[in-house]
């Protein structure tokens, strides 16, 4: 097994864990805000959370592509 294969495996595991954590956090956060309907606008949005969400998607997607590319 090459060095890159050894590195990508655990990194991809971390990406999966990060993705699941972001998902779990978003679910818990939504339910702790109460039962009412919420409509987000640009004024009420949280750019940091959106950026974190996007970063996790990019991170996971990149590692998935790398893993597939390297192992295939």
């Amino acid at each position: 097994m090459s060095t890159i294969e050894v590195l990508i495996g655990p990194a991809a595991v971390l990406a999966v864990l990060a993705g699941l954590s972001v998902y779990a956090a978003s679910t818990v956060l939504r339910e702790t805000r109460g039962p009412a309907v919420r409509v987000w606008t640009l004024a009420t949005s949280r750019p940091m959370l959106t950026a974190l969400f996007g970063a996790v998607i990019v991170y996971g997607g990149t590692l998935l592509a790398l893993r597939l590319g390297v192992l295939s």
Partner: protein
Amino acid sequence: MTGRTLARVGLVLACALSLVVPALAWWDVNIAGRPLWAVAFAVLVPGLPAALTLVRHPARIVVMLVPALSLASLLLLTVVQVTAGMWSEPLTASLLALVGVALTPVAWRRVARAVRTVRVGPRGAPTAPTRRILSVLALGAAGILWLTAIDTIDLDAAGSTGLIGVLPWRYLLAVAIVVVVAALAIRARPRTDGTFAGAALGVLAVMITTFVGVADGGSPVGTAYVHVGFAEWIGDTGTLRVATDARFSWPGFFTAAAAVVGWAGTADATALVVLFPAFATLLCFAPVYTIGRALYPGRAVAWTAVALFVLGNWVQQDYFAPQAIAFPLMLTILAVLLWQTAEAGIPPSSGPWWQRLLTPLGRTPPRVPGRSGRWAIAMETGLLAVAAAIVVSHQLTPVALILALALLSLLGAVRSRTLWFGVAVCFAAWFAFGAVDWWSGHLGVLLNGVGQVGAAVEAGIVSRVSGDATYQLMQTARLAWSALFALAGLAGWVLTRGGRLPMPVSAALVVAPMALVAGQAYGGEVVLRVYLYALPVLAVLAAGGLARLLRSRRPWATPTLAAALIVGVVGVSAARGVNVAFERTPADVLTVARQVLWSVPAGSTIRPLATEGALRVARLGDLYHPTTVEGEGSAFERLLAQDPDVVFLTSMRERYEQLRSGAPDGWYDNIARLLVASGRYEVVTRTPHVIVLERVSATPEDG
């Protein structure tokens, strides 16, 4: 019987199963009906206590969640066991039973507290007892007619017109009676008789989906036996076969089947395949009904939607296969989410048009009234578990689910707005780590399929309509049957403005699967899957379009509904059975296949002229099944060039060649004669449907 009593009886039954089935599995005790106990355990444990812990009412949600949670637990646990090298069917049963028993006290208390008002059966004014008594008698008579039809049908006579050309009048009369009972129950006054509508439609589903299988004593689709072989391999070795078949990369269904076989104490899963299509179809009832109730008020539309789903479902993806379980699980997730949205309601958007367009993007609908945040999280966790079970069991269904969830989220139509992301992470994780065998080494080939819309449509629609002129006509009629349901769904959508939810929501559930055609490496069969995935919502929308008829007090309304359903049942019987001449597996084919498989030495090469699922039913790792040789020369010359140890010729495959390629009558007999005349083969077995030839003085080393 009240809902509370029924729930308690169910909990006691689940507890009894939790004690009995693991004990039977550990000590391998053969008692009467052990397979039935095993199947009941797989469906009820731990789903029943888990569902009653999560939801106490409405009953349709409980009914839907029980098998979904049980099967999801079984799929996930067995995959964990097989990948961790801890395979043991008794251990699987014990762990599931432990979870079920642990949840039972909680479920019992919740049932005691809250299901007091829920009654099983009609409320309000009593339903006419005369109609019910007559309905029971009619269903009994229909059952007898159906059984006699099985005795009289000659499936060997089926040709280019398929099943409809050989259907006995008794079958048609039987299904017509059942449909009339269903129509009367749906239009019963003062309200729909849900118990009898469900019972009649259940009987109808069994009659339609199992007719060929019961008549033949074998699966209507031969591939089911390949899956039986996979399950047998897992049960025997406790491992997945590497580098042999892509389907082992999505093993949930096979590991679960292996566990059930172990609990049942049978040799393999063959006993399950004949009735499996009915089981898979019945699993869809509660989700389709729930989607119907979410989109339209009243039970009549929802039960009509279930009827239309049964009548539109000709694609036969309900045979013993992973998609047959993954599909109802996916429907369950969507139905639970739509139920929540319908219960909570979506506030109408206001302001200028661009604001009304953008508002859904940022909208999170309210929580179901009276439910806590902890309940919402628990429910979503349950749905994620069901989705994870789909992910490890089938490659296409999770993609359809993610697309549907993402679209619903974009439309602000579900409170679980990030569920699509959770499922996508699970899918990516399994793809990257669990399905390595599937993509490793040939990722390029898989990616080449992406974007091949034209090729998929060509393979899925155009190339299906080929061969004998009558057969082509029947294929076209089958496509027209699909188009009819699509048009009916569209008409219902327009007439009812999408039902109770915003129009784009119901449209999204039909449109989402269409994206599969573009982003897949699945070949032409994906077109059939797109239709299947869209069918439940099309059926609901079409039923919505019939709402006026269903509500009408005119005397002709019930006969009109019954007549439409009778036309539908004839149509679906014809459409499902177009390929019956060559897709079926008569009992003697399976018997002879087993004899051959268990009589040849390990390493032997066995060849049908093309494919034959029954030849994979056992000894997966011992025998060699080379693929069809394409190229120059006749089928006989190509077969001879491969020099297999055993040649297995079936009349079904011959019929296929006749319908699709214009092969002459007696073609296989002629090939057998030529093989014998070559001096290299001799006929060792001949039955009405099979000719088996063995190489003279064959040795395993030669293969």
